[in-house]
Each structure stands twice: as structure tokens, then as C-alpha cells.
């Protein structure tokens, strides 16, 4: 589709009726946004790239020195950091796979008409509208070993979900799945309702079974939007901080974002932290890029 360059204000618009010109709109909306973006996003981004080549520490007034690639060299040869990355990878895989499965499953169940569909859909969307820190604290209560409802319902006695080194990471992932499956569900619903009804009718006439129709028609036609959901959730899961930080202090659940936080604001190793942030950024970009390439391939069809 050809994009239309908006060079002039639509004369029929309300803005034009109020006597606003293109210039007024630019000054009112675009300039403040640009200033905000530059001051709070782009400037720190470039500045921190500079810091990542120094031994700067934000809590000391001593002059800092340029150290070249030393921060990067130290980080990449640090086993501790690598174990953080492995923990993060495990977390991303479990939590994103769980969200895709639960979210798409819910969408399939909701993609038909039944009484109170609107209400149920809205209720299912609530988790993702909550603050992550609040979700973390609530799930801490749910997981509580002695009187938490989860152990009570599943009859697990006093199993310590969050202080057990083997289960802490997965307990956090389950919470993340609970919180973000609705997001995948919402995108999947949009994708499912965009599959034309007459294709299902054609498939029924063509004697395709439910499973055959699902794998050959539904899935391929919904896959571009599922991939978009996958991209968003992978990026977000990679950066997870708040849920994990509020829920557990287990070293086996120390995600790379938590490591980064500790290094930057507990050890005040600002220069090195900037370097670590850049390593994380490059990794997220690389993974996203893979998805986007695949997405473009899918969309070509």
C-alpha cells in the first residue's frame, strides 16, 4: 500500500476549524515529544556508550579514566555474568513459550460466540494492566510456603517456591506467564478474527478435519501476528526486572537485568554497567532481527 505523505493539515479537521496551522500543531505536539525523547532517551544512550569505555563511578567525585575495551573484556570473560545470561535464556524460553501456548489457547477458546464473551475477555485482560511490582508482591503471597493458597490448592505442604534454588526461576516465569498471556491472547484474537469465515467453509466442503483445518489454514494465516507477539514478549522477557526483583533473592533466579541493577546501583560500577547494558542491547537486537527476518519471509506469502 502506498503511504500518503501528510504535508498539509486536512481542511475538514477540527484543528483547522480552530484556526490551527501545521506550525501550531508541530510546536504543540511534535517538538515537546522530540525534546523529551532526546533529553531522556537518545542523550543518555549516547552518553552511556561513552561511559562504557571508562572506569567512571557515579557515587565518586574522583576523575575517571578512559580504559578502552577493558570493561567489555572483563565482562565477557566473567563466568558469573555468563551464568546470569544462561538463567535469563532459560527464563525467556519458559516464560515466552508458556505465554504463547496459554495466550493462543485462550484466544482459540474465545474465538466463537457465547454468552458474556465481552465480559470474560475483559476480565482475562486484567493481569497485564497491573503494575509488575504489585503482581510480584501478590504472587509472593500466593507462593507463601506455610499459608499460601497455591500450596494449599495443590496439596504441596510447605514447599518453598521462591526460596528453593531449583524452583525460584520457574515460579517467577509462571507469574510472568500469568501476567502476559493476555497480551498474546489479545493479538491472537485479532489474528484469528481476521481469517475470513469463507475459508473455513471452503475447508469444510473440502472435507478437511478440524485438526487439518487448524494446521493448514488457521495457523499459517495467524502466524504473522503470532510472530509479532513473540517478538514483543521475547524483548520484554529478556529485560524482566521488576517481577523477579520483588519476588525472590535466589542467585539461581538472578536475571541479567537484576545483575545489571546490582552492578550499577549497589556496587556503583557505572562504566562497567554501561558496557553490560550495551551487551544486553546488542543481544536483544540480534534476536529481534532474526524474528523480523523470519516475519518478513512469512509475510511475503
Amino acid at each position, binding site marked *: 500500500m502506498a503511504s500518503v505523505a501528510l504535508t498539509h493539515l486536512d481542511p475538514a479537521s477540527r484543528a483547522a476549524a480552530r484556526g490551527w496551522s501545521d506550525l501550531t500543531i508541530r510546536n504543540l505536539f511534535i517538538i515537546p515529544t522530540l525534546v523529551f525523547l532526546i533529553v531522556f532517551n537518545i542523550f543518555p544512550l549516547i552518553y552511556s556508550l561513552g561511559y562504557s569505555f571508562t572506569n567512571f563511578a557515579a557515587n565518586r567525585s574522583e576523575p575517571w579514566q578512559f580504559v578502552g575495551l577493558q570493561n567489555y573484556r572483563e565482562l565477557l570473560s566473567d563466568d558469573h555474568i555468563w551464568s546470569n545470561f544462561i538463567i535469563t535464556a532459560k527464563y525467556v524460553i519458559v516464560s515466552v513459550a508458556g505465554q504463547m501456548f496459554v495466550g493462543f489457547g485462550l484466544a482459540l477458546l474465545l474465538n466463537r460466540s457465547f454468552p458474556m464473551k465481552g465480559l470474560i475477555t475483559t476480565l482475562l485482560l486484567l493481569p497485564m494492566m497491573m503494575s509488575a511490582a504489585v503482581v510480584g508482591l501478590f504472587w509472593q503471597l500466593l507462593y507463601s510456603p506455610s499459608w499460601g493458597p497455591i500450596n494449599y490448592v495443590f496439596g504441596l505442604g510447605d514447599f518453598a517456591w521462591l526460596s528453593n534454588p531449583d524452583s525460584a526461576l520457574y515460579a517467577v516465569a509462571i507469574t510472568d506467564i500469568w501476567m502476559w498471556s493476555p497480551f498474546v491472547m489479545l493479538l491472537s484474537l485479532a489474528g484469528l478474527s481476521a481469517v475470513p469465515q469463507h*475459508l473455513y467453509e471452503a475447508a469444510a*466442503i*473440502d*472435507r478437511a478435519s478440524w485438526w487439518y483445518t487448524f494446521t*493448514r489454514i488457521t495457523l499459517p*494465516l495467524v502466524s504473522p501476528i503470532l510472530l509479532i507477539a513473540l517478538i514483543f514478549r521475547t524483548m520484554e522477557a529478556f529485560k524482566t526486572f521488576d517481577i523477579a526483583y520483588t519476588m525472590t533473592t535466589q542467585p539461581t533466579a538472578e536475571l541479567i537485568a537484576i545483575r545489571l541493577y546490582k552492578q550499577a546501583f549497589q556496587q556503583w560500577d557505572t562504566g562497567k554497567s554501561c558496557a553490560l547494558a550495551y551487551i544486553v542491547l546488542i543481544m536483544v537486537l540480534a534476536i529481534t532481527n532474526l524474528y523480523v527476518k523470519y516475519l518478513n519471509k512469512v509475510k511475503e506469502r
Partner: protein
Amino acid sequence: MTQIELRGIEKFFGAVQVIHNLNLAIADNEFIVLLGQSGCGKTTTLRAIAGLETIDQGDILIDGKAVQHLKAADRDIAMVFQSFSLYPHMTVFENIAFPLRATRMSSGEVDKSVREIARVLWITDLLDKRPSALSGGDMQRVAIGRALVRRPKAMLMDEPIGALDAKLREEMRAEIKRLHVKQGSTTIYVTHDQIEAMSLADRIVIMHEGFIQQVGTPDEVYSHPANLFVAQFVGSPVMNIAEASVTDQAGAATVTVGDAAAGFEFPRALLSKLNGHAANGGLTLGIRPEGVLVRRDAAPGYLPVEAHIIEPLGSFDIVDLQVGSKMLRARTKAGYVSGPGEKVHARIDPEQAHFFDTASGKSLGVRL
């Protein structure tokens, strides 16, 4: 070898009844066209036969077996949709192979069947393309191929060429006819286009507001319309309809259109055939434009009339002639009547006249 029979079909959408007591028997290998305006129930009837729509009453029999409770997949019927309904993410080959693969046919056989049908439809060189790269006519060829490839018991077509432009429609019409003659399968075809219906059908079923109006060969519905609706729906240009009265004058019957001063002469036999209908006044005359004969000079039996609008249609003209307060449309040679206002002479060909009961709209079955 497939016969389809519909017995007493009733269908409601909410409180609205869209099909009323529909009965129809379709013979093996017959090409049936359901013809009617949009909303007449023809597509609903077709979808009910396919199994995409439930019915509230009646039986659908395929080869004598009641199928109204079977799912679409279990009826072994193929359907071509107006929207083509090709699977957009598959190539032409995969689209045509879909119904075969869905029933787990071996890949060698799939390949053979698809190539065979592609050859018949002249789409062999399109097999690797996706539907989005095809023209409308080719898309419909693929859709027809997908329907034919598994040799279904019957083919259902829902306005398959309605979305194409006029020239392509004509081409595809001929092609559908060719395919039917060549492949031979019981076909039910839905359209609102009477030319399509006339040119394709073995028998036409004309529907209106959920009722069957008439079932017959194209010639039957054209030459012997059962009622005023069929008379005006079939044939182009549309048949002239006018209330008329018949009187016995000087040993011949005279048919007077509306409040005209003079009437057209008809053979005396009309009087006895109408059997007193002329007296109660509820008589409507139907005459196709080609049954209104026009001359420039006066002749016995011709009434003087004035030409109004002239529509030149290439090979012939349609001329509106004022008879009393009514307009009769006549078909003349191109340019025969030079312009509006010209005085000419007209006569009604008694052999092409139809008579209907005004109140019920039913044909009186009177032919001269």
C-alpha cells in the same frame, strides 16, 4: 450418478421465513440453475444442500439418502464460492490438492489428479503461483479445479462468475458449459443473472421471496412463464405488462390496453379460450418487445401510435410507443423509427401474447 431431491424444505432466520415448502428433484448429470433476485432464498437453498446451513423442516436426499443431519464434509459435495475462497497462503497446486490431501490421498495420486485437472482447465502454467498473483478468471478456474479434482457427487456453484467483469463473465460462462459437457456432474448453480441462467441451465428454478415460482427448461420459462413475476424476470428487454380488456367486435376479438381508444385485433378463438375472464376485468396482457410489430405506413390491424423514447442497442432499437396512457416497448430494426414524436403503426402479434390473472398474477395458459 447422483440424484438430489429436496422435500418440503423450510428455513427460518429468526422469525423470518426465507424458504417456504421447497420441493425439487434434480436428475443425475443435470445442470440446474437457481435464479432469483438477491434475498430470494436461492443461496440459502444452495448452502443448505452443501451443509453450511441447517434447515428447520424437510429432507435433503442425495441418491435417496437423507443428509440434512450430516456435516458438509460427509456429504461429498463440492462448492465454488462467489468470493473464490482460495487459500491465500498456498500455491495454485496446493489449493487444488487441498481436498485430496485432506483425505490422505497418496502424494503420487495427488500430483496426477491435480495435473490432470489443471490441464483440463488450462492452468498448468499457473500451478506454482499464489492466488494473489492471479486474475479473477484464473482464480475462478482454480476454484473450479479444486471443486472438480475429487470427482464429487455434485457441484454447487454460488454466483461463481458474478464478481468478474462482463467480457470475462461471457468467456467463463462458455467454459463452465464446456466443462459440464466434458466432465458431466450434477450441478446446482445460483445466479441472479437471467442470461447466465438461460445459457447454462438444463432446467431453471426461478425463486422469489422464498417460494419457487417456476421450474422448467430455459425455453419453457421464456415462452410459457407461469406468472407475472417470471414473465418480467426472464427475458431482456423486459416483457410489457398492461391491464387489458377483451371485447367481441364485428366477429373478432379486440384487446384494448388500459384506457386506449382503440384495441388490437386478435383471432376470435381468444374469446372462447379466455372463458369469460374478459368480463370480470382482472386480465393482464403480457407481450415481449419483439411481439410488438411496428410499421411506418398504415396497414389493416395496425393502430396509429406515437414514438417516445428510442434506445439504440446496436443490433436493434427499443422504442417506447404510447398506447392510451400506457407505454408499450417494441423491438425494431436499428434506426427504423427515426426519432421521438414520429407517428408509426403498431400491432400485437397474437401468437406471442400472454394473458395473466391480474389479482393472482398466474398465467391463464392461453396461447394462440
